[in-house]
């Protein structure tokens, strides 16, 4: 494959001015090439977003201003749902710390690196429905996990992981960590392995130990990626956890309302309670939350460029 050599030449080419000999007519030549993708994207994203916003201000076709938003924001179930999303956000730091630790440990490992990486990444490719059903069995009160805990003498830790309302959401958080951590490991490891080794040699000669070296040398090198990973995972917690909840609780968000999240709220309002207008208003709020995260990321990234020379 010739891609590496190709990539090297690219920087020279990007800076070189393009020849301006092309005629105006040729500049429109891109239209037939881009059209199929543009039409599909405009339908799936453009039309839907427009329609969604329009519907969130209507009820049975007539304009109701902000009423839908008022109803949604005063619905205790919706507030519970976004509260749960916020609680899931709290596991992002845990996820990040674990991913960083594993990536650094792998980076220091010469033997077995590939095998470890392939297995740690394995959960990430598994379908959430499969993961959900298997964990659902594993975490039963008489299930495999509690049996294992009893067997090693930690029976006191055994619990009704998914049936206890005070635990169910955190159990789900642990499953999300289990599935998502491999993504971070692969991401960080790829960057670490592409860094010049002098960076680490210098610190090692200075006699930096494991923690000092990684805290002061390695992690600063990963700054942008860490930020990227935090944003991606924050978006996951806010707006991509539907599958876990749906599969683990049979679409109920139970026990009680202990695992209802905003996506499930939207899904149920739209398809079970036949209130698409309320669902649309909730979806608009969810979209805005996602947007805030993304914009915040770009702000932080830009601010970071000024202070850190990378």
């Amino acid at each position, binding site marked *: 494959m010739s891609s590496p050599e190709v990539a090297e030449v690219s920087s020279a*080419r990007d800076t*070189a001015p393009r020849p301006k000999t092309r005629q105006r007519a040729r500049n429109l030549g891109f239209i037939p090439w881009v059209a199929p993708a543009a039409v599909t994207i405009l339908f*799936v994203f453009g039309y*839907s*977003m427009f329609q969604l916003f329009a519907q969130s201000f209507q009820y049975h076709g007539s304009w109701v201003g902000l009423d839908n938003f008022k109803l949604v924001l005063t619905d205790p179930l919706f507030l519970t749902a976004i509260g749960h999303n916020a609680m899931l956000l709290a596991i992002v730091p845990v996820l990040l710390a674990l991913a960083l630790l594993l990536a650094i440990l792998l980076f220091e490992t010469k033997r077995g690196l590939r095998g470890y990486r392939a297995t740690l990444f394995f959960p990430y490719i598994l379908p959430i429905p499969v993961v959900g059903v298997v964990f659902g069995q594993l975490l039963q009160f008489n299930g495999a996990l509690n049996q294992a805990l009893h067997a090693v003498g930690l029976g006191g830790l055994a619990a009704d992981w998914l049936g206890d309302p005070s635990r169910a959401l955190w159990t789900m958080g642990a499953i999300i960590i289990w599935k998502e951590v491999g993504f971070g490991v692969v991401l960080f490891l*790829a960057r670490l392995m592409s860094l010049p080794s002098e960076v680490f040699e210098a610190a090692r000669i200075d006699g930096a130990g494991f923690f000092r070296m990684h805290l002061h040398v390695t992690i600063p090198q990963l700054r942008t990626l860490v930020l990227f990973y935090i944003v991606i995972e924050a978006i996951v917690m806010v707006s991509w956890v539907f599958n876990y909840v749906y599969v683990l609780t049979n679409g109920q968000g139970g026990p009680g309302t202990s695992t209802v999240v905003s996506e499930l709220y939207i899904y149920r309002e739209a398809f079970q309670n036949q209130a698409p207008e309320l669902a649309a208003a909730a979806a608009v709020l969810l979209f805005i939350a996602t947007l805030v995260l993304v914009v915040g990321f770009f702000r932080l990234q830009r601010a970071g460029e000024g202070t850190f020379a990378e």
Partner: protein
Amino acid sequence: MSARHLGNVARHSILLACTIGALAPAYIMLTGALKTQREFLLHPWALPSHPQLTAFRSALSDQLGQWFFNTVLLTCISVFVTAAIASFAAWGLVHWPFRGRETVLGITVALMVVPPVVLLIPLFQVGASLGWISTFRIVIIIYVGLMLPFSVYLLANFFRSIPVSILEAAQIDGASPWRIFVQLVLPLSAAPVATLVVVNLLWVWNELLLALVFLQSDSKKTLMVGITGFQSRYSLDIPTVMAGLSIATLPLVLVYMFGQRYFIQGLTAGGVKG
């Protein structure tokens, strides 16, 4: 020296523990499929004492085969269409630079993070008014739309890295944009296209929400929707559920084993550069 040795042991123990944790559910699933219900409940961690395939047989005699076929069909068509449309679009964007191109690419990148649940309601209403609920075409259109932003972004980035001198040489020889694309650009793009296909393939195969909402009739269900319902239908026959899950996962594991490199490249493409 001994401190270093201790560090090595600690590191490998942590990594090994995590490896075991990562594989444990798959182990439970696969061995569970070969056990009897009683054995699964009593000894979930043990190897099956008398491995048997009855669970696989009963899973397949249900509609699993139909769902499997539906998923394969949906996945193949939407991944292929996405790859084709995205490569056209990326080439169009790169070969004919126009004002606002960077903005178009920027918006495309931003679309990657729009949660599907946000688009669900309006799309469902369109689907319903067209009478396309429980048809594959509406789902394929939506899947293609959702996969396009990442796909166009990835390919456009790659096409931009092709040295302009190669393309200009071909242009001087009088080759049309179409010929340059088919004979020059595509053959160079085998690696990014493979990345794209692997990432998209796994995404479509695993997708649940849209399939759940749009494909309601039993004969049109996908594997993921089907096996989600499996657990309540076979709550007294866990081995059959586990067999169904194993069958649904097997193709993914194969893709992962052979396409791991491309998959990792695809996932890091967004992050490492940014």
